[in-house]
């Protein structure tokens, strides 16, 4: 309290005399406990809030509309499959020959599945282990180098991956396993690298979201780091990691440019790791520029199939995360 302060009579007591400056004459001021009436929300604020909410809603609707419109368009274009080609012939046919008006897409479905599963089999473990390293093992310095590198991998255009596949991987595969080097094996190698960043980054997020406390608890029980990772951290992050793998799968199945460049593009059944095949995506791109009539309809039918496949993947992710929360 300052030296200038002189004690006041009790009736004039205020709690913080220093803050108040010269003491007010309390007899003439309102008692402190009497609060002012609450101000009403101004019209302008109301309108602004409303407007913003509407804007956000509109943006969200654009995304939904986009999906609905694209699906409707593809479905409409593909609907010709039923009268013109015959759905059964389309979906179970194993022969694809534009010249003979044979539009069986089984080779492409098999091609897409083979390429995707192979890429996942190589890429997912690689990515999950990368995520584990980044999240559980790496020191700050290693992390500062590796994380940006993995992120950069996601930013490389797929045509560059394709180029890498054509000039590096394909010749290597040709030399080691014979053939021309264009086929599923080459696609596996290139695609698996392409999906690493997707799976690794999402898995790392899942791992990082696990509370430090349960790791400490495990260590404090006398578990080694590997036991902690394997028995506590991985099970806890399981749902997030499965999500990541499924999204990586979506990336692999939808990848077009790189696959187109390295898979060989022969519309024939999968017959070996080095024999050229085609996938749904690569075949659509190849035919797109000149297709007409039934050929064109068949391509749209394949696009609709792709659409359904990725919708199923999203659905699986949803169901998994729901069951995960219950269990």
């Amino acid at each position, binding site marked *: 309290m300052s030296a200038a302060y002189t004690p006041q009579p009790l009736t004039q007591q205020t709690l913080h005399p220093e803050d108040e400056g010269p003491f007010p004459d309390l007899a003439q001021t309102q008692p402190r406990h009497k609060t002012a009436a609450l101000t009403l929300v101004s019209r302008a604020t109301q309108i602004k809030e409303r407007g913003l909410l509407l804007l956000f809603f509109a943006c969200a609707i654009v995304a939904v509309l986009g999906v609905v419109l694209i699906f409707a368009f593809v479905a409409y274009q593909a609907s010709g499959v039923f009268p013109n080609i015959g759905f059964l012939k389309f979906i179970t046919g194993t022969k694809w020959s534009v010249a003979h008006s044979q539009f069986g897409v089984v080779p492409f479905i098999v091609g897409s599945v083979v390429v995707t599963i192979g890429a996942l089999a190589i890429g997912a473990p690689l990515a999950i282990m990368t995520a584990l390293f980044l999240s559980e093992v790496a020191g700050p310095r290693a992390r500062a180098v590796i994380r940006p590198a993995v992120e950069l991998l996601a930013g490389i255009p797929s045509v560059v991956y394709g180029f890498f596949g054509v000039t590096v991987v394909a010749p290597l595969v040709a030399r080691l396993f014979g053939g021309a080097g264009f086929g599923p094996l080459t696609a596996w190698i290139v695609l698996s690298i392409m999906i690493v960043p997707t799976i690794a980054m999402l898995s790392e997020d899942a791992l990082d979201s696990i509370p430090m*406390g349960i790791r*400490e608890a495990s260590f*404090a029980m*006398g578990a080694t780091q590997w036991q902690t990772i394997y*028995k506590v951290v991985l099970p806890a992050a399981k749902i997030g990691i499965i999500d990541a793998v499924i999204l990586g799968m979506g990336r692999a199945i939808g990848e077009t440019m790189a696959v187109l460049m390295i898979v060989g593009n022969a519309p024939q059944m999968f017959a070996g790791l080095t024999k050229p095949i085609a996938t749904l995506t690569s075949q659509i791109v190849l035919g797109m520029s000149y297709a007409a009539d039934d050929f064109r309809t068949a391509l749209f039918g394949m696009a609709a199939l792709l659409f359904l496949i990725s919708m199923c993947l999203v659905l699986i992710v949803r169901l998994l995360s729901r069951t995960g929360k219950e269990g």
Partner: protein
Amino acid sequence: MTPATVHDSTVYTVPLVAVADETLFFVRNLEFFYGDFHALTNVSLDIHPKAITALIGPSGCGKSTFLRCLDRMNDLIAGTKVEGSVLFSGSDIYGPGVDPVDLRRRVGMIFQQPNPFPQSIYDNVAYGPRLQGIRKKSELDEIVEDSLKRANLWKEVKDILSKNGLAISGGQQQRLCIARVLAVEPDVLLMDEPCSAIDPTSVQKVEDLMAEIKEEVTTIIVTHNMQQAARVSDYTSFFLQEVAGEPAVLVESGKTNDLFTNPQDKRTEDYITGRFG
């Protein structure tokens, strides 16, 4: 160098003035650093077996840090450094080649925030035994039931063992964590403010179980709550960081009753009479 007092065939790496048989942890001149920050200095303390020792002191006085030195949990924090000696049952836990994993199997720890694994109650308790290679269902069942009983939780969860450990209340979670530690039959239980985040009923149950397991497990508890320290412990140590930024010290240790009724140090007296902290 004075010759070590050796009471078995082990040759100690530090000269021991006297390791009395009744000392479980024998701490001498402990210094602890978080990077450049000197957190604890010159801590010397004997922990008596089959007794409850309370570590008290104001926030930030290093009592939790000290506790975490005893099972080398501070090893998990990058940039920490320990000097001095900490002997557990006569062997230097910071000695060359000592496996912290083995130490932590024998020295269990309970944390302030209950931290059950996001797994079933059963799997939580069976975690430690499974780590030790116990696979037989009947044996695990027995351990799980026994541990949950000792942790005063069995009655509440015996019908929901397959439920997720996170689905029960905070106080129950903390007792689940205690059961999980007891399942590996540790010699020592380190408790880092185990009751500060749980409901009063559970606090009561935790305090009861501490008394019940006293014959088998030595407990060291860090607590903010002086009443709790006075209620549950046999020995009490008072830590204090007198100047911010300076290392904390161990001011006074003794039998709980003596320390609370007849403190030898003015600072202890000030603290237990509520004059600061």
